[in-house]
């Protein structure tokens, strides 16, 4: 377990208590804090920082919830034509539901950029960034059902009581912006399994993700209760001063208590959020050109919000494509995929260009993918089932090599066979890019040390820039 410092929280509180006009004997009480309370207070603040110099300071995770089919997008498999409709050995892996014969993808691929990376015709604008993409073609996971797979992708395990990766990032690195939550989850609706996917579990609760429903982009709707609606800022400040004074009196009568001190701090963060978060979440402040570049729709708004957040030092932003599991194409796969790709192509391309243009891409790791992929075999003629045996994700920026693919699936694209990368390996690698050693980033709980990668995970050096 790393030893957290007790810097920020105590300093903030001390400042706050001074601000509250002393006379309450608080400094004396603060000085009498036990070492355990210092430790606790420290945990409530910022942790010790990276283990080694990071390549990426922030992460944007574009989450295609439901599971996109890799064979349509980044992992072309010409052999499917040859075996269409049949189930040769290797094409009969067990997935969630029964599937029939192999179903070729109707979408064409072309090579792009200097790297000649193969990208599908469904993603023409993203293809222009081929030389930035590090396409991971041999991801694999343990479970073909949405819930467990979402948990594994987010929390490293299908056990629903473990901290999410974002919580680990914050625990390891803290936040760069004290006026905004350090870990934001954007979704125009609710992904399946919901808040468990960004919980902090046994990590201190300040590391949990803050969920924002951006189906309307009015900042006040995205952040409920952000506005007081009753008092103006000064009046509210007057009232908050009273509240904090009540709290301070209470605290002084109690001797000392780090939880209560953290609560005083949370009130102040919330107060600051009222002014700053509104501005940060207000897409109206973007130029028309920028808005147009990202295009329209929830996902475009999510990408643009993500950029605004990382710009302000938010450590981790997840953008879920949509409510429920929109990429879950058990039927009408081709048609739905075409539409989904139209929704994501322009915004992602714009995001990459925007980050690059602002000099942020080098330090921002962009991750794209679902909780798993889909089968090369057909479900009910025109659908595809979940596939955890082999699927594609890609990363860009933040210290990864662009213009490359890593890993291979079998000739049907069903199963990862070469340079396989388990979700644990993905997590280990992302932590590495953030300057964190996945084996050293531990937290002691219930008598043992826990890690995001549990006892697994390999940093995939081959893709590091």
């Amino acid at each position, binding site marked *: 377990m790393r030893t957290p410092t007790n810097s920020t929280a105590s300093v903030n509180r001390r400042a706050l208590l001074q601000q509250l006009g002393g006379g309450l004997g608080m400094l004396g009480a603060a000085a009498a804090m036990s070492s355990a309370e210092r430790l606790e207070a420290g945990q409530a603040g910022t942790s010790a920082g990276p283990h080694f110099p990071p390549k990426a300071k922030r992460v944007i995770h574009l989450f295609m919830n439901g599971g996109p089919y890799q064979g349509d997008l980044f992992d072309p498999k010409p052999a499917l034509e040859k075996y269409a409709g049949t189930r040769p050995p290797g094409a009969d892996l067990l997935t969630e539901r029964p599937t029939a014969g192999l179903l070729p993808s109707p979408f064409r691929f072309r090579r792009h950029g200097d790297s000649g990376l193969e990208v599908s015709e469904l993603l023409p604008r993203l293809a222009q960034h081929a030389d930035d993409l590090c396409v991971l073609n041999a991801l694999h996971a343990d*479970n073909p059902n949405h819930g467990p797979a979402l948990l594994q992708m987010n929390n490293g395990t*299908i056990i629903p009581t473990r901290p999410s990766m974002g919580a680990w990032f914050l625990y390891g690195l803290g936040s760069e912006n004290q006026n905004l*939550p350090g870990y934001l989850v954007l979704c125009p609706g609710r992904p399946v399994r919901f808040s468990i996917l960004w919980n902090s579990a046994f990590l201190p609760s300040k590391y949990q993700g803050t969920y924002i429903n951006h189906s309307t982009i009015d900042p006040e709707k995205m952040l*409920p209760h952000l506005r007081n*609606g*009753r008092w103006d800022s000064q009046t509210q400040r*007057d009232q908050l001063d009273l509240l904090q004074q009540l709290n301070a009196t*209470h605290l002084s009568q109690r001797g000392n208590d780090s939880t209560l001190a953290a609560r005083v701090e949370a009130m102040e963060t919330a107060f600051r959020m009222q002014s700053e978060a509104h501005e940060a979440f207000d897409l109206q402040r973007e130029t028309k050109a920028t808005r147009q570049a990202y295009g329209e729709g929830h996902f475009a708004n999510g990408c643009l919000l993500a950029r605004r957040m990382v710009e302000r030092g938010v450590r981790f932003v997840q953008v879920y494509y949509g409510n429920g599991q929109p990429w879950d194409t058990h039927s009408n796969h081709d048609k739905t995929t075409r539409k989904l790709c139209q929704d994501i192509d322009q915004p992602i391309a714009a995001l990459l260009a925007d980050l690059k243009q602002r000099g942020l891409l080098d330090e921002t790791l962009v991750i794209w993918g679902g909780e798993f992929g889909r089968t090369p075999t057909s479900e009910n003629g025109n659908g595809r089932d979940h596939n955890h045996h082999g699927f594609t994700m890609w990363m860009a920026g933040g210290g990864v090599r662009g213009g490359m693919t890593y890993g291979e699936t079998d000739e049907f694209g069903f199963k990862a066979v070469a340079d396989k990368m388990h979700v644990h390996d993905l997590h280990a690698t992302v932590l590495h890019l953030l300057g964190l050693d996945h084996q050293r980033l531990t937290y002691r709980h*219930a008598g043992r040390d826990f890690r995001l990668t*549990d006892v697994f995970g390999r940093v995939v050096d081959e893709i590091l820039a």
Partner: protein
Amino acid sequence: MLRLAPRSLAQLARNDSAATGRAKRDRFGGRRWRVAVQWTLCAALLVGAEAVTVADDAEGVRFFETKIRPVLAEHCYGCHGAEDQESELRVDTLDGMLRGGYAGPAVMPGKPTGSLLLTAVTYQDSDLRMPPDEKLDAQQVADLRRWIEMGAPHPDSGDTPAPRPLGEIDLEQARQHWAFQRPVLPRIPALVSPGLKPIDAFVFSRLDDAEIPRPGPADRATLLRRATFDLTGLPPTPAEVTAFLADDSPQAWQRVVERLLASPAYGERWGRHWLDLARYADSNGLDENVVHAHAWRYRDYVVDALNRDKPYDQFLVEQIAGDLIGAAESSQTDSPAANRPPDDRPAYQRRNERLIATGFLVLGPKVLAEQDETKMEMDIIDEQVDTLGRSVLGLTLGCARCHTHKFDPITHRDYHALAGIFKSTRSMDSYKTVAEWHENVVESPQQTQRYEAHQQRIADVQKQLDQRIAAATEALPEEQREGKAEELEKRFSPEAREELKSLREQLKQLQDTVPERPMAMGLDEGTVEDLAIHLRGSHLTLGDVVPRGFPAVLTDPETPELPDDQSGRLQLAQWLTTGDHPLTARVMVNRLWRWHFGRGLVATVDNFGLQGEPPSHPQLLDWLAIQFVRSGWSIKSMHRMIMLSETYRASSRFDPVAASRDPDNRLLWRFPPQRLEAEAIRDAHLAVSGTLDRGIGGSLLTLKPREYVFNHTSEDRSTYDTKRRSIYVPVIRNHLYDLFQLFDYNDASVLDGDRESSTVAPQALFLMNSPWIRRVSTSLAARLEALPTPEQRIENLYLLAYGRRPAEAERQGAERFLKTFASAYAAKASAPPESDDSPASPEAAAWQALCHAVVASHEFVYLR
């Protein structure tokens, strides 16, 4: 180790393999989603150990040498031979095959279905296929099967000792774990202080030993607020505060405790604690989030049981096997210690109540659309085993589903012995997707009569109808009697047709008005059967059949065997509640302690296994467990015992000296301060603002039985708009009430005896800006307005919200604030005009602001 959902097993299993340093993944041990693959502890081997009888006849060995060894050598030795042992498996020796690799023993002599070697070469399991490149030919596979059937004769048979089972458990050693030993009545430490209660003697002696000063008492107002929230989840009323502060008789405190225990609000509060263990919810959750329309009956049963101080043993027996208890066994255990009113309800009510109680094991989240019905059934059983194990025994039994428990002495065999009991129980009526859980009819004789009479009337009218048709058909000329029914009817006389029409209307009317039968989720007996060990947790790979029973480490030769004609649930319940069970009473008293003090004597309240934390006060725990049983398992007796102690009545004041010696307050040098739970915050807000609806019981759901809870586009939140106590607010899995979610309500899908208490900015935003808090502060301010003077209002505000009178400085501070705020407000007139609850005047605004600050403050949301 926590194990919370059926599908977590694969993960856990992998933890296990890795924990022993063998995390290597390869083809044989390849990941498989249904089941754990990489498990090291080969329970099956353990099970099979006694059955290993390897044939060694010369004929058999010749068969092996000519038919089997060449195949193994050509196709297997490369990866599983002397050089390499992928997945820790080698098949070039008999020992290697019997011992097996990660996935289990490759060969179980005489048992082809339990032999993974055969599973692998038959390619029946898509993730376990050997040789990986090409399937053996049919003859080779047949030979392997034959060889295993023969008992796996092998030249080494003679001198191969039975291989050391990888997951062997030394039961005698395992029983040394403190929690597996029966509690022994400890000697109460003799302390100099006279008249000390036993609890205090145990606690203070530890403080004395550590040279930590004993805590002083909490002041009376603090104590009353603490106890009132603790027992009822509500704040004390000003009248209660005033009365207690004025009562200086020695029995004053005791009277408070009795008053609170007698309040119906007690069951609503402590029933909710139990519901956390029952993972209570009004919907299924997961992907098929359909309504548990009748779950509320179980909730009301729990509330009522707590209020009646139903003995905990009976409470458990009813929940596990209530359907199996006859009237004779139902009479309440009378105990001298328990001060319970007699249960004079009619027998049918008690019978229904016991049926309702069995909802406990049916409430879990289920994958109702699982295509593989056997898997669905095993997953549901697993959830039941896990819930029962953790809630009652404090053991993570579910961890043994795929493999012998990594940490606790629970074998794969133990798991299946217990699972067999639930396999023999009916929890589901249908496994066809969308599957349906079982429900029992819980009606009164009158309701039954009414229902049956109604059905009879339907039958009667139907009969009349049939007779009339027959008669009318008779009446037709013979040649017209042929043809379709509708055609025939057209030929009937107008009178006959009119009569039929009227009868049909009657029938329809009757069918439309069938009285709704009260239903309750619950159990019934199923087909009694023992379960085969599911190798690697998969129902596709079965091992030995295990007789139903209880975990070996907790049983002795006297433990009875289960009857052949019953599931064994009743016996299980009785075994758990024998009184000298090492875990049942300990686990429960520890939970009670946790809910009083915010932390258990065993901090890991749901895990008393080897991975759990040892008790901070082992003797106290044992003493409490024994008192609990002696009191006739009376939960209220335990509350009395705990709350009358000085330990409970201690001040929560921080002491730097004590803190330096015992930073975590494990020795209880102060009463641990606690934040109110989500429900208590909400209920207290409603209570102080005078808007709480104290109605008891019933359902607030507006959806039909088994209806899908919401679709994401048209979610209906109106059900959360109620002033009833929080326990009655519907619990919709995956869609919990925002306020609850924000303040660490339990997940409602998995049991949790130890809720979190987080502190995050979104909570602060809620308390600063939400419409909820605005309504609360407006109502509270309006309530105060009824009082004539500002002094009285401020005093009442403090009494209502903090359960104490304001200090003079506080009163002055509040008045100062009111004045300053009102004048600043008047100067700015900052209220948005469109707001319908805008304060009528700057003074009213100031009062609302004051009330708001008070109900959002530390002192309101924390107990000390």
